[in-house]
């Protein structure tokens, strides 16, 4: 059905999307926490900054990453010279670009879950003797888990299809950074590649749909688990 190269693109897409979610989940939860609960100067600015990837052209995000994480960029140079880590034109770079793009999706979802959480429950936990970390782990986190899960799955599904930022920052290298959408793009640029593009588009569509259905299903189960139905 699919050629080995095409399977490679599917595998790479899953790996990049998966790694992007792994990388951005914890910071996204922290940022969502700060935005939902924190009262600090610059909160609105942070809010805007987090949402920037939703409105800025993905190519611009990719260009920004290139400036920051390129071999001569302020962060990229340090990573390369001190730790020997190179992000441009690598799978890791593709994951980073995808993570930045899907970051706001997770933040929004987690934040919605947090804002719907009754702070009275945390107050009750305090009166029952639970300290900050204790009540975060035993009350807050379980109750916001549907939001985290929904955010993670949505980000994963969206990450499968990230194009602009990835191609700008990580380029289109088969087996390294050529994810599904990049492979589809490459196929459409090749004479006689229409059939391959069609097959990959179908796979892409199926994966996204499966991801969203899975998110809905898992969200419901979690909702029941935390007693919200």
């Amino acid at each position: 059905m699919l050629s080995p190269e095409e399977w490679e693109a599917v595998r790479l897409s899953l790996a990049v999307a998966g790694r992007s979610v792994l990388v951005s989940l914890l910071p996204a939860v922290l940022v969502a926490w700060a935005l939902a609960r924190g009262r600090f100067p610059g909160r609105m600015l942070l809010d805007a900054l987090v949402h920037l990837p939703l409105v800025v052209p993905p190519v611009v995000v990719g260009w920004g990453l290139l400036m920051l994480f390129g071999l001569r960029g302020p962060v990229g140079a340090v990573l390369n010279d001190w730790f020997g880590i190179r992000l441009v034109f690598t799978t890791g770079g593709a994951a980073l670009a995808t993570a930045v793009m899907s970051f706001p999706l997770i933040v929004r979802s987690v934040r919605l879950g947090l804002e719907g959480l009754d702070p009275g429950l945390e107050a009750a936990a305090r009166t029952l003797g639970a300290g900050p970390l204790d009540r975060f782990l035993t009350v807050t986190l379980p109750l916001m888990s549907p939001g985290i899960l929904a955010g993670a799955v949505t980000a994963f599904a969206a990450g499968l299809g990230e194009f602009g930022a990835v191609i700008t920052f990580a380029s289109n290298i088969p087996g390294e950074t050529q994810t599904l959408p990049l492979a589809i793009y490459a196929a459409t640029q090749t004479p006689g590649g229409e059939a391959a593009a069609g097959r990959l588009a179908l796979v892409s569509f199926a994966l996204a749909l499966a991801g969203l259905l899975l998110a809905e299903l898992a969200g419901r189960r979690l909702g029941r688990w935390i007693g919200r139905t």
Partner: protein
Amino acid sequence: MLEVALRHRFPGFALDAEFASPGPGVTALFGPSGCGKSTILAAIAGLLRPEAGRVALDGAVLLDTARGIALPPERRRCGVVFQDSRLFPHLSVASNLRYGLRRAPRDATGPSVEEVVALLGLGALLGRRPLGLSGGERQRVALGRALLARPRLLLMDEPLASLDAARRAEVLPFLARLRDAAGLPILYVTHALEEVDALADRLVLLEAGRVLAEGPVEALAARPDLPALARRRDAGALIGCTVLAQDAARGLTRLGFEGGALEVAQRLGLAVGARLRLRLRARDVAVALEAPRGVSMHNILPCRLESIAPAGEAEVLLRLLVGPTPLLARITRDSQARLGLAPGMAVFALVKSVAFDHAAVAA
């Protein structure tokens, strides 16, 4: 001994309250909505930081703004029962009950899970989730959870206010049992007089953020000078009684109190010797100069008229003493004039035997 002194300002509202509550038993914080009673509770629990204040429990300082002491709620060991139960929805009833117990200090003493489950009748609920429980069941679980945290003080913030009358009646006896079993000081916020009658030993009367009066419930209920109590339609003396006899033939129950006895329409289910508290509403008490004959009323109590206080345009409140026990009677200004009533006179208080629909069983 709980000592509380708090000052806090909200936009349009200032709290400036000070009171003390000695030893175990229920102290009711009573007043209309917005009088600051829930704010006081939150400040004692540590959930609200007042601008100034001091809270000490048996000598342990929980809050002292002057000395910069403010223990966080998790270290105050004040069990709180909220109006909206606040059970953890993701945990079973059993896990909810154990939540505080797991975090209680090792040396803290108190009833075991089994004892609390039996006390509050929670056995059938243990495996269930809070979402599936009725409002009354939820509050019972919340009571158990607070008690099992082995607190030094129980704070109850209108625990029955979100329930309908039937559910209130269902939970109230459990509250009374918990009060008797816990042996803890309990601070009970409410604006419902029935709950005060049924549960409270002491009363702190609040209005607009200030303490109007504090003292034993019976003493405050018989004061005609407290409009928050005396102006109510159900104003009246609270009388601690002991069941003396059940007269099945006549359909009467005879109750003794300090200084006299009352006959009331029979209440079955009260054993001889049981203690209970009656609210004798001022509007159900009439006054005569001589013991009347040929009246249907059973209770003709010789008493001394202690004081007369105006109560509205056309009425007065009489404070009568039957032995040492005070009663209140509400009569018209005209009746006062016709009878020539003046403090110090010997009169008779007339009470219908069917006048008590507010009887509350107390320990």
